[in-house]
Structures are given as C-alpha cells and as structure tokens.
C-alpha cells in the first residue's frame, strides 16, 4: 500500500486509542469520586472534560480530511466510519463521567450508607463498565472481532443492576425522606452507567463492522 495512506490510518487509530485512554481514565476517576465521595477527584474530571471534547473535534476533523483527500473504499472506508462513530461514543461516555463527577461535586451528602452501597452494587457496575472499556480497547488494538463481541453480554448485567437500583433507591428514599435529593441524584449515576453500557455495545458493533463487514446493529444478535 501507499505508505503515506497507511501512516494516516495508523495515526487515526493512535488518536482514537489516546481518546480511549483519556475517557477510560475519566471513568476510573468517576468511580473513585463516587465511592469515596471525593470532590477533589470530581473537580479533576470536570476540568478534563474539555480535553475530551477537544479530542473529539480533532478526530472528527481528521476523519473528514482523510475521506476528502483519500476517498477510502472497502476496509479503509469501514475503518474510518467506525473511528468516527467510536469517537462519538467515547465522547458521550466522557460526558457521562463528567455528569457523575457533577453529582459528586454538587451533592450535600458527606458519607454513604455502606449497606445501601452494597445493595446497589455500584462498585460492580463501575467494574463492569471499566472491564468493557478495557476489553474493547484491546479488541480494537488487536483487531479481534471475537474479543469485541464477548463484551456484549455484560451490557445485560448493567441493565439488571440499573433496573434494581430504581426500586432500592425508591424504598430508601421512603424510609429516609431527608435523603430524597441524594437518591434522585444517585439514580442518575446508575442511568449514566447503563447508558455507557449501551455506547460500549455500539463500539463493539463498530469494531465488528470494521473488521468483518458484519452489521450487528438492531439484529438482536449479541452473540454473533
């Protein structure tokens, strides 16, 4: 292949990988901020959100340039389209980390009820999200569609934890009326993590589309 085209494609992949690491770090810190109710960590996430946004714009622009200048076809076209969509998904995940940080920053609560935390399984939810992020990053690096699809079933676990969190928080709010504002804000954290799972599912589908030219979207074939 023409070397400079290969160089452009590799550079694009490297940028998306860097964006990925940045978003992964934001989500890891969001976990720490929530579990320790650490407003300092939350502040760091809020500040770094601008970097995520800037990175998204840079990748968008580079993809546009590549399409305009090199008119890619076949696997190259699928690659740049996948990078464009993955970039957008990563930016949304970055937004969710930012939203979670805002909750920690704004909440009046000083500590969590340990029993409630255990029952809500918020740590598990963060673990699953971070595992999915790491495994998909590796799947893209290795161009491994099997690895990409293997994370799809984990999204169901996120859905289940999110679903049960609503009733647990509702019950807790009834028993502790003073905690109603906290419970409402905390429910948002679960929704954001659940939505993160949806975006990670999209990313897995984009990786498979790029490598195997298979469309998994809207097929219900999570095991394909």
């Amino acid at each position: 292949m023409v070397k400079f085209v290969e160089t452009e494609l590799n550079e694009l992949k490297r940028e998306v990988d860097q964006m990925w690491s940045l978003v992964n770090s934001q989500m890891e810190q969001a976990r720490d901020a929530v579990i320790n109710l650490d407003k300092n960590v939350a502040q760091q996430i809020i500040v770094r959100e601008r970097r995520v946004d800037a990175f998204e714009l840079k990748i968008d622009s580079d993809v546009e340039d590549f399409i305009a200048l090199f008119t890619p076809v076949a696997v190259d076209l699928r690659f740049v389209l996948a990078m464009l969509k993955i970039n957008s998904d990563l930016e949304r995940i970055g937004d969710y980390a930012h939203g979670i940080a805002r909750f920690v920053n704004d909440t009046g609560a000083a500590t969590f009820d340990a029993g409630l935390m255990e029952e809500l399984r918020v740590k598990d939810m963060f673990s699953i999200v971070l595992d999915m992020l790491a495994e998909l990053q590796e799947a893209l690096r290795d161009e491994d569609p099997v690895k990409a699809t293997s994370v799809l079933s984990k999204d169901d676990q996120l859905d289940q934890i999110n679903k049960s969190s609503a009733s647990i928080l509702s019950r807790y709010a009834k028993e502790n009326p003073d905690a109603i504002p906290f419970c409402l804000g905390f429910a948002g954290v679960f929704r954001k993590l659940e939505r993160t799972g949806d975006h990670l599912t999209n990313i897995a589908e984009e990786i498979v589309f790029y490598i195997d030219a298979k469309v998994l979207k809207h097929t219900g074939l999570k095991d394909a």
Partner: protein
Amino acid sequence: MEKIEAKDVNFYYGDFQALKHISMSIPQNKVVAFIGPSGCGKSTFLRLFNRMNDLVPGARLDGEILIDSRNIYAPGIQVDELRKEVGMVFQRPNPFPKSIFENVAYGLKVNGVRDKEFIAHRVEEALKGAALWNEVKDKLNASAFALSGGQQQRLCIARAMAVSPSVLLMDEPASALDPISTAKIEELICEMRDQVTIVIVTHNMQQASRVSDKTAFFYMGEMVEYDDTKVIFTNPHKEATQNYITGRFG
C-alpha cells in the same frame, strides 16, 4: 436478461496466455466496469466482444462469447454486422479527418443508408444523445479536429451511437480528458444505459464506482472477482480485490 455471456474463455497471443478460463454474464442495459492493473487482460477481454483481436498475429481464442445468445465467433458471423451491434470508443479520441457531420453520418453511409433526411435526423439525435449538439449545431461542416479533446471524445460516442448499437465498449474513454470533460462522459454513460449495454475499462477506481452497476476485477489474465459495484467497493470477497482497490497491491 443477459446481453453478453463469456464461457470459459482462454485467449493467447502466440504462446502467451492473456486470458485464463473467464466466464461471466453481462446483463442487458447495465454498465459493467473492468478494473485491474496494466497488463491484466481487461482490454484484451473487452476487444473480444467485437472481435477487435481477430487480426492480431498469433492470436487464438478458446471458449465462447455469446451476444444475445449467439456465438459471435461461430463460422458465418459477419464481423462488420457484429460491429454495427457492438460499438467502441477508445482511450484517445479518434475522429475521422472529416467534418463533424460526416463523422457521425459515416457509419450510416457505410451501412448503405442513402436517405439524406434520415441521416440528418440521426446525426442530430446522436449529437444530442452525446450532449454535443448545442456546441456544434452551428458548425456541423467544420473539421472534427477543430473540436477540443473532450468534444472529440463525445463526437466519437455520437458516431458510435448513430448506428444504434445495442452494446457500447469503452476502453478508458476519459483517461485523456480533463475533469469537466470526464464528468460529461460519465454523465453520458449513465444516460445511455437505457439504450445500450455498456462495458467500460477504466483505471480510475472512482469512475468505476460512480458509473457502473457491476464491476469485474482482473489480475494476470484471470477474473478474480465479479459482483455488484457496491459489493466490490464496500466489502469485496477476495483479498486481492480489496488490496487492489485500497492501493495495497504489490
């Protein structure tokens, strides 16, 4: 409905085998593009459809080529009759050293048409069909050489279309033209598909993807892949095809 069928075609220039076991069907009123690196056999294959290789010393064909289910290499086939049905446009415009009008009228006259009114009507129709009429209607008696390269190529298309062929072969018809003339030729190809089946050889990948319904990729005398153009340019099934269209060849 199939317009052209090639059945296990092998073609030789002396000892050199230029085409190897090619079988394909070209549907009626579709545009089919042949792509592949230089020397892969795509032009040789194209030229078999109107027997342009017949006079090449040492050339030999095995297999069958059928147009409208008739073997065009069968004994008794009149080559001049065949070429009325199968027109051709070449890489470089090759107008005759005659007037614009005479260039387009030439095929009709050679085929014995004497009705001047009919000839004038067909010339106008063909020039309109080639999107050239408005540019030349006031200078039909001027030399064809006075036209620009792009206009000359459209004149050659008009000349080929004047005898109402059912197949038009185009061997890199826009490779010597500027982008505006190229766009006009491509537009013509899209418009003419209602009247003729078009087979085009091109080195321009974007041209193949823009104008053709189906694309065949040739390499070293073999037809590696033949499929809908959308498939070839989004998800080709053969690695060699993907490598070629993405520039990873060699």
